[in-house]
């Protein structure tokens, strides 16, 4: 065996001769699971777009840092008026777009006005809802007036959907993105990879990579071989959590388990009988064994949650003790609700492994309390259509990865079909409050209400496992937003 391997490897080396270089590497192949539908972050919701372009090709006024903090970007500094309504941004000068044109305040005004226009195709128009006017003071100064104070405004301006684009190239960014970032777009081999190269005209601190290729590896099974064979050197979002343990022991790789903003929940259609009964929903919560779910669906890497808030958040309140795994209690509650003999329902599962695997486990756990679930796997297209839009479902599993999104429970017509005026009031108050302490209290109350109502089955915070070559440094450990910021990435050789 061993001998064979030696011989064959020698043969391989002979074949591969001439391909290796000894100087420190300046190229990187990053594995991503999903291919972006197009390359314009201001015109699509897909996280895959940001994963390639955010901070690399496109930049905003502000940006989100590795731990979710707001950092200055194209805006060098800013001042906020006392009433919290007027923001004055001082922009960097000497910034050029990749097509050679200059960047100035007009571009910012254009970008923001375009994003909040009536016919805008921006996927997150809500980010700009508070803006009243955008004024160009001079080419390096911009004044934004809000309709009312908004605590999260600077954070909002750091989203990928709020990056600055040039008016000349705005319409062609989907195919050929032109931004101000340290990397410029080179090539998109559809279905295969997207290549970025270093921009020579970058205004900021120079990056150390010359070339970055985002290789699309849609099949989780292919991730490990791709990594082991050296084809791909980094998977910031490693799709195959079960194999993490095995890669962990390998000195060639670094494994980083970080947090995300993904609250993974068992969504319940709470208007549809029997789920309109509180006892039924609570019974489901008691029936769930979160540890088993995390072990089975996320390789034991997730953190259990008791409400819709990331444990990493300052506002987090630990409510996991509210519904401990208790089959007897669950059966009792079902009996109270009139379902002594249980009932049947469907569980629609979108494609990600956390949903498909978690679904199997949950089906098995609910069977223990008498609820028979029929598992219906659906593609994202069907999920959006049937579950999200038409609300034609009983139960589903999905991870809500947007940061600070507890307000979704107050949205009218959201697919949970949840309606609680008390909760809506808290959210409304939250929007008008910029005082940090007050906000924390309100957020705590909101979490408590959701947990008490057992609106959905709160499962766990989706883990992020990053796996990359041990010689590589500078990649994000956590995922406050879904992005692969390459500005600080370098090889240490």
């Amino acid at each position: 065996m061993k001998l064979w391997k030696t011989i064959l490897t020698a043969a391989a080396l002979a074949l591969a001769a001439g391909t290796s270089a000894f100087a420190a590497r300046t190229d990187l192949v990053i594995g991503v699971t999903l291919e972006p539908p197009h390359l314009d972050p201001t015109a699509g919701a897909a996280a895959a777009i940001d994963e390639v372009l955010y901070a690399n090709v496109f930049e905003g006024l502000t940006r989100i840092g590795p731990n979710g903090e707001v950092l200055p970007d194209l805006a060098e500094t800013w001042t906020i008026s006392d009433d919290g309504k007027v923001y004055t941004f001082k922009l960097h000068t000497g910034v050029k777009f990749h097509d050679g044109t200059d960047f100035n305040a007009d571009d910012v005004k254009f970008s923001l006005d375009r994003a909040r226009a009536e016919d805008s195709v921006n996927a997150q128009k809500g980010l700009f809802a508070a803006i009243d006017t955008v004024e160009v003071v001079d080419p390096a100064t911009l004044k934004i007036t809000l309709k009312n104070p908004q605590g999260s405004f600077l954070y909002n301006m750091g989203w990928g959907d709020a990056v600055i684009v040039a008016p000349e190239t705005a319409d062609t960014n989907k195919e050929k993105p032109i931004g101000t970032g340290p990397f410029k777009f080179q090539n998109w081999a559809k279905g295969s990879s997207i290549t970025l190269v270093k921009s020579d005209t970058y205004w900021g601190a120079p990056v150390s990579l010359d070339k970055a290729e985002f290789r699309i590896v849609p099949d989780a099974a292919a991730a490990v071989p791709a990594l082991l064979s050296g084809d791909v050197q980094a998977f910031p979002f490693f799709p195959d959590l079960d194999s993490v343990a095995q890669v962990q022991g390998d000195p060639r790789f670094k494994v980083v388990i970080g947090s995300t903003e993904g609250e993974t929940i068992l969504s319940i259609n709470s208007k549809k009988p029997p789920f309109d009964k509180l006892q039924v929903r609570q019974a489901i919560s008691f029936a769930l064994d979160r540890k088993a779910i995390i072990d089975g669906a996320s390789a034991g890497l997730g953190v259990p949650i008791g409400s819709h808030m990331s444990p990493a958040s300052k506002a987090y309140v630990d409510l996991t003790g509210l519904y401990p795994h208790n089959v007897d209690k669950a059966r009792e509650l079902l009996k109270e609700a009139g379902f002594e003999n249980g009932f049947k329902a469907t569980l629609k599962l979108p494609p990600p492994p956390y949903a498909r695997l978690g679904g199997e486990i949950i089906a098995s756990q609910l069977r223990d309390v008498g609820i028979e679930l029929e598992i219906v796997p659906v593609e994202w297209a069907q999920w959006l259509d049937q579950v999200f839009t038409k609300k034609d479902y009983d139960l589903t599993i999905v991870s809500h990865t947007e940061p600070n999104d507890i307000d979704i429970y107050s949205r009218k017509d959201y697919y949970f079909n949840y309606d609680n005026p008390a909760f809506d009031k808290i959210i409304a108050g939250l929007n008008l409050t910029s005082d940090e302490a007050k906000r924390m209290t309100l957020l705590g109350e909101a979490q408590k209400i959701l947990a008490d109502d057992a609106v959905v089955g709160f499962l766990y915070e989706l883990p992020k496992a990053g796996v990359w070559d041990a010689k590589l440094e500078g990649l994000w450990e956590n995922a406050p937003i879904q992005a692969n910021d390459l500005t600080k990435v370098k090889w240490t050789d």
Partner: protein
Amino acid sequence: MTLHIDISEENLAGILAKAFRNRSFLAGFVITALVAAVALISFFWTPFDVTRLIIADKTQGPSLTHWFGTDHFGRDILSMIMVGARNSIAVALVAVGIGMGVGVPLGAFAAARGGIVDEAVMRLNDLVFAFPALLSAIMITAIFGPGALNAIIAIGIFNIPVFARVARAGALAIWPREFILAARAAGKGRTLITLEHVLPNIVTLLLVQGTIQFALGILAEAGLSYVGLGTQPPMPSWGRMLFDAQTRMVAAPWMALFPGMAIAVTVLGLNLLGDGIADILDPRSRRQR
């Protein structure tokens, strides 16, 4: 291609005696019977309950308790393979049933009528053959949703032209025979002749094709389940098990190894059986040995 229809001139006892002297047939028969037996036993007994997930026991290697190890949910793989056998067999069997049930009458009818009817049936066949089977199966399951039932339909549809072709070719080889002329001279109509004389004489041909399609059906079910469009959990199926195993190849290779072997062995058994039947019934092979 000429088609040689053997008209066996022996009775059942003779054929059976020959069958058990044929190595292919014997090996195929033993394997197939074993798989069928395992599937049957699984209705009454399996080493472990496959409906219970015991996450604490997940991905354990083969041991004395779990001969083939456990899967990512702590289920016993041997038990899963046993239960999965009935699913694989059921899907393939029903798909062959659909193919035979529709294809054979169609092919026999085309051969009996000839002319425009024959042409129409054959062109319809061409049409189905023009669609790559797996691609179409994926399209069908995409329309109706994944699941064992839709997998059966998707696989079954593509069995129809296969059986139509075989039945037609077989029937066309029978129709010019003198005994058919004799039956026509006796005033029998096409339908009656097809039923009384043509079909009984192409049964063996269909049987051989049946085992081949059965084996292909098992492979197809595995393929569909492997891309996640076949049998759905919690029902175990071999392809589904491979689907679950694909991301755990390095960590838990036994999860892929044993279901893969179950598929290979079953398909091998069926193919050997088909070969054996063809061998036994082909007079030329007799002449040689």
